């Protein structure tokens, strides 16, 4: 008797074959095997990629009607508006994807891992250079961008888009941290000028910390920002970030000195708001706006908010200038510049190149400054009358001066992991779990282990 619910003989093979089919291709493939063409070796790929892009042919109208997808940081939609001008001028349609900074890395790597050609143009942070080159994510533009074009940009912004002599993007903007101070609070303590050295900073902080106000506050939550502040002070004390072998050198005597300085400010002098250990740069800006701290080290974009009565209690009381130096260094800063590059998997590289060129030109860079307060990477703009007229706070000269003292963080593929290790150990020292020497020695040992582990 046939049972209605019995399993037909052929059901099992059918289901099994469906399952087996789906399990094809589980073993990891080398990037070159997994390419869409399926056969091109990496050098041949690079050759065809470069043949697709020709700087001299840009602007000839051949790309009209093409469509490119652009992925950039745009938290409030203003960049998307500015980019519309590109379409008006070149006829190339832009599918703009605006995201917050933290999502950028994830989106780019997901698109690259799945070999999708969805995204053509990407915004690239300087520290990703190594990963994007070795991981074959960004196109190598070394032989595409002419040397004369690159020479138009500030040195530190160009350095931030280069990995191991390979140019990976066009510099998008210039950025570093600056010293901001509250003129009124300083005057009340008897100072008419900001500190020029870290020793002065320390002395002034002691006099400025009173009546519920702290000398300074920092963004020392455990994240990359902690590394940036640390690297800035190490450089001021004469330490080098990289040793002769190009490895991250975290426990040089100057590094220990810098970390000791930070811990002393926090625990011995008590001139730093202890909440700094939980704060990001935005929290520091808020504390400064509320008049609770006299000095802060922060990025650009503080103005015009600091002078806006709806958002700030220190309107027209603040000024900006060089981060203090020490010894023979007048000032030091770490560059936070980013670049605009092209994905290797893009199918519209020439059209993407048009966009990349447009970003690096005066029109966009000036707009970016007027709309968002972002400083250009194009050197000539800093003497341009349009730019000077747009500078309402008259701080252009002071901001630009800092860029001369900027240095770049290493961008080898392993940097992201080493930076995490470094910030973790620095944090340990700041919360007094370890002495600065111990923390940095541990960091150096852990970085060595990480390098060995990655090579195995």
């Amino acid at each position, binding site marked *: 008797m046939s049972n*209605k619910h019995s399993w*037909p003989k052929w*059901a099992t093979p*059918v*289901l099994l074959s*469906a*399952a087996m*089919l*789906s*399990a094809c291709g*589980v*073993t*990891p*493939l*080398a*990037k070159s095997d997994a390419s869409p063409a399926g056969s091109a070796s990496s050098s041949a790929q690079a050759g065809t990629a470069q043949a697709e892009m020709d700087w001299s042919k840009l602007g000839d109208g051949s790309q009209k009607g093409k469509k490119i997808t652009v992925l950039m940081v745009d938290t409030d939609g203003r960049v998307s508006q500015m980019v519309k001008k590109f379409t008006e001028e070149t006829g190339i349609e832009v599918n703009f994807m605006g995201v917050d900074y933290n999502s950028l*890395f*994830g989106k780019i*790597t997901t698109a690259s*891992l799945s070999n999708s050609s969805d995204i053509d143009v990407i915004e690239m942070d300087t520290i990703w250079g*190594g*990963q994007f080159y*070795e*991981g*074959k994510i960004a196109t190598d533009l070394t032989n595409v961008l002419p040397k004369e074009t690159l020479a138009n940009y500030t040195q530190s912004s160009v350095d931030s888009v280069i990995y191991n002599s390979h140019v990976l993007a066009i510099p998008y903007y210039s950025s570093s941290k600056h010293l901001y101070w509250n003129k009124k609070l300083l005057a009340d303590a008897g100072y008419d000028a900001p500190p020029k050295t870290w020793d002065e900073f320390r002395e002034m902080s002691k006099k400025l910390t009173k009546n519920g106000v702290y000398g300074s506050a920092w963004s020392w*939550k*455990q*994240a*990359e920002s902690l590394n940036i502040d640390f690297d800035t002070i190490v450089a001021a004390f004469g330490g080098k970030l990289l040793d002769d072998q190009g490895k991250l050198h975290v426990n040089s005597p100057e590094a220990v000195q810098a970390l000791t300085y930070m811990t002393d400010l926090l625990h011995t002098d008590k001139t730093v708001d*202890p*909440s700094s*250990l*939980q704060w990001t740069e935005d929290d520091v800006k808020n504390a400064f706006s509320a008049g609770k701290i006299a000095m802060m080290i922060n990025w650009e974009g503080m103005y015009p908010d600091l002078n806006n009565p709806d958002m700030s209690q220190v309107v027209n009381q603040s000024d900006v200038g060089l981060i203090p130096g020490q010894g023979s260094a007048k000032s030091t800063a770490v560059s936070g510049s980013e670049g605009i590059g092209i994905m290797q998997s893009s199918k519209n590289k020439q059209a993407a190149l048009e966009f990349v060129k447009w970003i690096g030109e005066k029109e966009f860079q000036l707009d970016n400054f007027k709309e968002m307060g972002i400083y250009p990477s194009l050197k000539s703009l800093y003497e341009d009358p349009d730019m000077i007229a747009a500078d309402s706070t008259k701080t252009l000269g002071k901001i630009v001066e800092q860029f001369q003292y900027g240095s770049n963080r290493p961008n080898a*593929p*392993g940097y*992201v*992991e080493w930076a*995490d290790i470094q*910030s*973790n150990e620095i*944090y340990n020292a700041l*919360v007094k*779990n370890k002495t600065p020497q111990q923390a940095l020695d541990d960091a150096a040992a852990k970085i060595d282990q990480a390098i060995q*582990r*990655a090579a*195995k």
Partner: protein
Amino acid sequence: MRHDALLAYVLLVPTIYILFRIFIVPIFQSSVWSLYKYNLMDGSDPKPVGFGNYADIFKLQDFWTSMGNTVYFTVFSVAAELAIGFFAALLLNHAFKGRLLFRGMIMIPWAMLTLVSGLLWNWIYQPGYGALTVVLHNLHLLPDASNPLWLSSSTKVVTFSAIADIWKMTPFMTLLLLAGLQNIPHSLYEAAVIDGAGFWKKLRHITVPQLLPTAIVAVILRIIGAYRVYDILTVFTGDAKTSTSYLTYNYAFRYFYLGKASAMAWVSTLLILILVIVYMIVLKRNQDSHL
């Protein structure tokens, strides 16, 4: 009839294919990847290394730190959720005015996205003007001059994330236990009252044993959920050693050590599976011995 069955199976094949591809194949794939050295971002080619990745993970100090933190988080949050959820369920089991409103209200924390909850609690835990500090000052439980940093160490971060998690997931426990409570026959309680049992005796001898099967299910579900804690920790800290999921995510999608991350995922999954199986065996034995 055979034609109908054939058609049914043919129509099923695409769905089974998709389900396999999305759920089963990645699990299988990650077990294969865990046997390779597969670093996506340093230009090296994948090469088989047998159980080398597993050996590396066992030797990794950070992994054991993260396991310790995860176990602490799981035990603390599940125990608290069980205790609070149990008493909340007892309360909600009695008819009182506004009971429906309370039953609806407790769903709100549970319905919130974990990340949103994390941002909310980040504000509460702010030193100085954050809600926790302000409330403790006003209740005079904290001296006015003191301004503690709630999130300034990994242990504190895990503890306070557990508190946020307890706030969020206790409703889940409450509802499960409430459903179990409503299945206990009233006749048992009436018999106990006749025998002279008070509140605590009733609780110990009727409620708890009757509720045990439901409680086991609820606890296992919460253990598996709490073990996977990740997104709330990313709001509070950049330190990946606060949970195994966080460390595995960083290894996979921040440093792109895909081989090692796969091995790490498998080790932590196997450990929790062993724990759950042992737990169920012990409890089954306990239950059987009571009967």
